[in-house]
């Protein structure tokens, strides 16, 4: 990865809104070619602000940002030609047909008539909307609208695609449908994609690397696997049989706490949570440690850490719903309504 081109470079980037709110506070990272990079964080963490800076919609108050080697402040139009932006809200016109939405987009990106038809067919094929292209968008289902929106972002063949909360407000089935098309982009178009999300499973299933962002700064950045590994290899959850005597349990606890593989044991009701570096490899050691004690286990289960646990670890809290402006809520609600509408 070291040799490949950096498609996105962000160095010590800050955005301070009038009134002193630090939306971004010294953020640095880079994204190499053909990577799907995820920005994970709750609402109000600074994800959208970061995307607005990278798409030239907002000027940073400090630091540097380059997209495909071009400074986002110095040459806005060149940056815009290089990127596709699919915003959080559905940015398609319901009153036009799918085809007209794509024609408009092609026009706004100065595409020649000659190649326009070819490209429109290509992206329609890619998002599976060929048959419905001539229908008005208000007859589309939520998933189809989002796919059309993504197609609009692809029409000028950008090298980088920004997907801001691509599945916000969609039902589970539709989310999986959208994931399928995003994975297809990765495999067929070999595009660099930066997506933001506050769904852990989304980041986990789509992204090669993930950055955890909270209150305007990056808390961690790595592959989902390594992030989870940093958390330890998992939990062994166990329960003793009712016949177990308290003094035997105490003895068992002392033995376990002396083992190298054990990081920590906590008790929740009659359930014990054992945090370890690798729960699968630790399991035989766990049984070995308890060997010889007259003690029956009622149940033992293994639990792998999820990105949720990672997020909790780095930010000290669950993904939360922050208060947002009324305007933003209106927009989110109205796009949710439009997304949910199915026919």
């Amino acid at each position, binding site marked *: 990865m070291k040799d490949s081109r950096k498609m996105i470079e962000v160095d010590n980037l800050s955005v301070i809104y009038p009134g002193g709110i630090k939306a971004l506070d010294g953020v640095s990272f880079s994204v190499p070619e053909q990577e799907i990079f995820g920005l994970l964080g709750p609402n109000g963490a600074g994800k959208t602000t970061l995307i607005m800076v990278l*798409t030239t919609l907002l000027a940073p108050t400090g630091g540097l940002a380059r997209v495909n080697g071009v400074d986002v402040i110095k040459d806005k*139009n060149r940056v815009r030609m290089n990127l596709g*932006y699919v*915003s959080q809200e559905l*940015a398609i016109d319901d009153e036009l047909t799918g085809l007209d939405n794509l024609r408009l987009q092609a026009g706004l*990106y100065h595409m020649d008539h000659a190649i326009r038809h070819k490209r429109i067919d290509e992206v329609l094929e890619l998002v599976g909307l060929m048959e419905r292209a001539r229908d008005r968008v208000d007859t589309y289902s939520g998933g189809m609208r989002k796919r059309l929106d993504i197609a609009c972002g692809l029409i000028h063949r950008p090298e980088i695609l920004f997907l801001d909360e691509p599945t916000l407000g969609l039902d589970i089935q539709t989310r999986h449908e959208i994931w399928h098309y995003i994975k297809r982009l990765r495999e067929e178009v070999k595009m660099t994609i930066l997506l933001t999300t506050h769904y852990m499973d989304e980041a986990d299933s789509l992204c090669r690397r993930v950055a955890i962002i909270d209150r305007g700064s990056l808390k961690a950045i790595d592959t989902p696997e390594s992030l989870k590994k940093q958390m330890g290899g998992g939990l062994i959850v166990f329960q003793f049989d009712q016949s177990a005597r308290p003094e035997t349990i105490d003895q068992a606890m002392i033995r376990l706490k002396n083992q190298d593989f054990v990081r920590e044991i906590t008790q929740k009701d009659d359930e014990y949570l054992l945090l370890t570096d690798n729960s699968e490899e630790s399991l035989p050691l766990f049984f070995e440690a308890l060997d010889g004690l007259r003690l029956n286990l009622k149940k033992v289960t293994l639990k792998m850490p999820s990105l949720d646990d990672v997020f909790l670890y780095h930010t000290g809290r669950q993904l939360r719903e922050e208060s947002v402006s009324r305007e933003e809520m209106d927009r989110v609600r109205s796009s949710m309504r439009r997304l949910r509408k199915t026919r």
Partner: protein
Amino acid sequence: MTAMTIGLKGAYYIFWREIKRFTGQKMRILMSVVQPVIWLVLMGSMMARLTDNPVTAEMIGVDNYLAFMVPGVMMMSSLYTGVFGGISIIWDRRMGFLIKLLSAPIPRYSIALGKISALVLQTMFQVSVIAILAAAMGITFATGLPGILVTLLICGLFAAIMSCISLFLSASIRTPETLFSVINFLTLPLVFSSSALFPTAVMPDWIRAIARFNPISYAVIPVRDLVISGWEWGTLATGIWLLLLMFLILFVLVYYRFEKGSLL
């Protein structure tokens, strides 16, 4: 491509979208025709009774109120089409479509220019419909087809002025309701202190003084000449120059508002 070509091409596609939307909305097209009919048939027929009486006709200085009113209704249509046109910015912002336009590689003034052009074309369509309706009611242009074409130009220019005002306001206003109340606050006094619907002869002196400098009057007087009396080159030139000047000043304001200020 030069920066200018990019700006104009961008404006063309914004224009194209607005026209596509307009032609897709059958109801909107129908209403844009029905509204002037209501004005002409209801208000026109009522007021025409006044000019049927030679004494009152002499008093208010108008021979045929319907002929007097046709240019007024044309200007009202231009006014409202233009002045409510900025609402599309508010809807685009709400829908999230504005972000897409702002992140496209076109200058921001293209958005304004495209929307203004679309409103001008809609206005010209409406004014043509009114001209046909008026003809059906026996009111024809003294200056014939060339007069109608010049009328379209004046109405288009007037709609462009009004859409500049509307876009300038909508750049900062976030809800349609607020825009409506601001616009009503601005337009109602403007309409009633102009000679669009009522002859200046019936106005009190102070309103007549305002009417003289009212932009609506500058637009409506030349058109009235084209309908009733014929080619009055003096008022025509004055009217068109003043409207053009007003449009240019307002467009520069819109240009800077769009290019320099925040639209989100």
